[in-house]
């Protein structure tokens, strides 16, 4: 059939002639948007093409930027901070140009002068270490070119991994702020506007590290600023899904005032050049231990440069798995122990299996989050070939990812 999406069609149905736009065909059903605005699915064979309506190209209205404001960069990886709805076809499209983003979030224009880069356009679950490198190099260039802060829009699924990756890959004097939305940008209730404005406020603030800025509560009242190496998505769908684990948040951005409050321990903006070190050893995995796990699961990571185990409790696997772990280590895999408890500190000195794991060559991951541990291990192995030094680096706090003490209340 020569009917294309957006074509005007009609069909005889229910004793009347229905008219509308053809949207798509799925499983033999044509989806038609009636003039009432409703979509219905109808046998594709019933459809008659009326006249071709070429979709009008959106009129690009140039947004005037205030040259007196600080230069900010929006780097997009495909997370939608802005989108447009074509009510004629019902299609929702993501927006990546600075102009589009500023039109969708009008308040941005009062915060900075924006430029936009799109190093990748993917669903965040398809993120890979290779794209982290591209992302890091894009962000690095933007800072080199004078951006006073960089906002990275990112799908929320793997945002914490990417934020951790950039934390290690870039030594930044200015804020690199990851932001996303848990409710799609096309809906009036989307968290994109508040998160977007708060991330921009954080990007011009005195902060000087990689962070994630997202809703702190289910209300539109303020955003939390999380450290990139300490944040985790802790809910599948809520606005306030992101949580700092094992540390306080770096600060808050109030909404709608956009007042930024930073904690004393948050790194501050510096007058320095950024540095980029984007070597990663990508052959690193995560393994979740469970009761009765076959040692074959451990063995399946043979040949890996690194493996992060999510053990039980203080960082354990069954005794049965320890020989397999020992073999892995002997064959050159760096194995780091973290805990599936997520909160608290790994300590393999207390129980027998723990001590056996230490003897097998497992590195205690302290209070590293498993995800941050994986990213760090990739980075450490990409930069340090000596296993002993690599192990030492894994136990050294480089980007606030490791806490020496676990504060009361956490």
């Amino acid at each position, binding site marked *: 059939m020569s009917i294309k999406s957006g074509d005007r069609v009609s069909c005889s149905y229910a004793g009347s002639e229905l008219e509308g736009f053809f949207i798509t065909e799925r499983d033999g059903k044509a989806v038609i948007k009636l003039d009432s605005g409703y979509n219905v699915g109808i046998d594709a064979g019933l459809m008659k093409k009326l006249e071709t309506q070429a979709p009008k190209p959106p009129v690009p209205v140039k947004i005037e930027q205030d040259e007196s404001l600080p230069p900010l960069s929006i780097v997009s990886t495909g997370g939608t901070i802005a989108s447009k709805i074509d009510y004629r076809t019902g299609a929702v499209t993501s927006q990546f140009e600075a102009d589009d983003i500023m039109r969708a979030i009008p308040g941005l224009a009062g915060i900075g002068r924006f430029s936009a880069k799109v190093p990748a356009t993917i669903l965040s679950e398809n993120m890979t270490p290779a794209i982290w490198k591209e992302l890091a190099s894009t962000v690095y260039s933007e800072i080199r070119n004078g951006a006073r802060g960089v906002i990275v829009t990112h799908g929320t699924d793997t945002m914490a991994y990417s934020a951790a990756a950039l934390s290690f890959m870039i030594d930044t004097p200015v804020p690199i702020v990851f932001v996303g939305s848990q409710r799609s940008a096309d809906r*009036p209730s989307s968290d994109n506007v508040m998160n977007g404005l708060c991330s921009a406020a954080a990007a011009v603030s005195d902060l000087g590290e990689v962070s994630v800025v997202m809703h702190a509560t289910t209300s539109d009242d303020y955003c939390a600023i999380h450290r990139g190496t300490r944040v985790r998505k802790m809910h599948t769908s809520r606005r306030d899904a992101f949580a700092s684990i094992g540390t306080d948040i770096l600060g808050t951005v109030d909404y709608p005032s956009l007042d930024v409050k930073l904690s004393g321990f948050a790194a501050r903006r510096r007058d320095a050049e950024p540095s980029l070190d984007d070597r990663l050893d990508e052959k690193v995995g995560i393994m979740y231990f469970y009761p009765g796990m076959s040692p074959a699961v451990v063995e399946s990571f043979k040949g890996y440069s690194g493996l992060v185990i999510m053990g039980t409790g203080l960082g354990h696997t069954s005794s049965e798995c320890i020989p397999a772990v020992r073999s892995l280590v002997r064959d050159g895999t760096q194995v780091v122990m973290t805990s599936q408890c997520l909160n608290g500190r790994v300590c393999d000195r207390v129980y027998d299996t723990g001590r056996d794991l230490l003897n097998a060559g497992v590195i205690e991951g302290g209070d590293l989050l498993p995800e941050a541990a994986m990213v760090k291990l990739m980075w450490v192995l990409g930069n340090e070939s000596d296993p002993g030094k690599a192990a030492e680096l894994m136990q050294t706090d480089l980007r606030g990812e490791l806490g020496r003490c676990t504060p009361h209340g956490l």
Partner: protein
Amino acid sequence: MDYEKIGLMAGIEIHQQLDTAEKLFCHCPTRLRDVDERCGEFRRYLRATESEMGEIDRAAEEEMKKQDRIYTYYAYDSTCLVENDEEPPAPLNAEALELSLTLAKMMGMTPVQQVHMMRKLVIDGSNTSGFQRTGLVALNGKLPSGARIESICLEEEAAQRVEGDTFSLDRLGIPLAEITTGPDMRTPEEVKEVAAYIGMLLRSTGKVKRGLGTIRQDVNISIRDGARVEIKGVQDLGLIDEVVRREAQRQQNLIDIAAELKKREAAVGEEIIEVTDLFKDTESAILKRAKCILALCLKGFGGLVGKEIQPGRRLGSEMSDYAKKCGVGGLFHTDELPAYGVSGDEVRLLKERFSAGDEDCVILVADTRKKAECATGQIRKRAMMAFEGVPEETRKMLEEGSSAYMRPLPGAARMYPETDVLPVDISEEYWESLELPELITDREKRFATELGLDESLAKQMAYSSKSPLFEEAVLKGIKPNLAARTLLSTLRELSREGADVESIPGRDLIFLLLAVEEGKAAKEAVPEILREVAGGVSVSDAIEKIAPSISEDELVSLIRKLLDERKDFVREQGMRAVGPVMGVVMKEVRGRVDGKIISEILKKEIKYMISS
């Protein structure tokens, strides 16, 4: 008014809450709650999203005018993250879909082959998501009266406004059938009849919510040279014809005003003048405390702004409605002044500022400068519309049937697909398998003819939500009249007394009525027994307490004893004694035995006594 002559056209949209077990897109119960039972609250902003053409929906844009668009929501232990707009919707509720399709079939409609849920932009705060999910379910039906049913949609109910910008989430997501008729009605009475008929159809399913606010009619009205106006939220069917009448009147008056304005060569003044100084010593409290008073002059509008266009409503009221969108309290216009503390001198000075004459009208708005400026803009906009006659509007019904402006009629550009809900195919087999319920009107006839209820009781029973229970009772052998009276009158009376009759399960009612039929409890004791049951006593305990069963032997001995005590009287009166002694026995057994049985035994015993 000659409605044919003025070309009245009216259609209705009926929104009926469905009485399903769960909500349309989550598994929460469809139960309303008291706000005091809330277990949490949160606050959100909503904003109109940009469309492909860079246009924001005009209804949404109107909402955006409000300065403070933060909404507060109350959550309950019977609501969930779906209502909170914090979780993707569950699949479409199959029970609700079936019910809407059943309704469609009852009205001779054709179902769509595949239902697609849409998001309809609503940013007045009543939907946490900023849209209402709605899907077109069926098309093109016809009522016996000939009125066309254009469509039936399955929608989610909005959150209930508690006050101001605070909403309660218990109602959000209750399934709602939206039935839209064609604009086929030509008189106010016809509108009422169609609405009533559809209401009857809905109730015939036995699965719609009942009670205040569970059904709402929107009426679309236009007259020739007028415009389509939608009046929302007519909850009382009794007023629907009056609403139509008044809107027809309003449109006719606006058309007349437009003609008069053209004749007068009226014009809306360009100038907005600040007149705060003029009122610094005014007696009007509102004007006196205002930070800023702005005025504009409507040339040639004199007398027309104050003209009544509908009971209690003037052209000035329409302008005021527009102005209120900016957050101001209202306006003053010189057609109604001097009054409200504004003196004649002040009016004179005000008019002088604009060099305005008697044929002109000056309008005043008092508030902060920002709000007042917004409001004068709105007033100018509405004044310009007056030249065109009737603006297309969505209006809300006021108490007596008049209406006030709410927002422009929403454009069509406000729907896009709800991608979180998968489309649902409606197969022919499924459609064929749907069984239609008996219409209440048919049921009413059946109750009267087959079960012998009198006409009024038959109607009452047929419309009652208790009618399935009634039918069950009759099937079990309870006399229709006893069942109907108990379920209707007795329960209603007890309820008025304050007894919690709603808590009495149907099976208890049947158990009790069976006991009556079996002579184990007297009909007369039913109210008292039910009162006990409503208080938490089990039905068998209540029967035992109020009407402990008396064996026939016991009854006979009791009667003999009583007769013995009245031997002389009985001997004297003979069978005439039955009546008086009957009263005594009844009092003794306190409704534990049916009067008929007592009467039989009594007669026998008296007969024996006088014969012995």
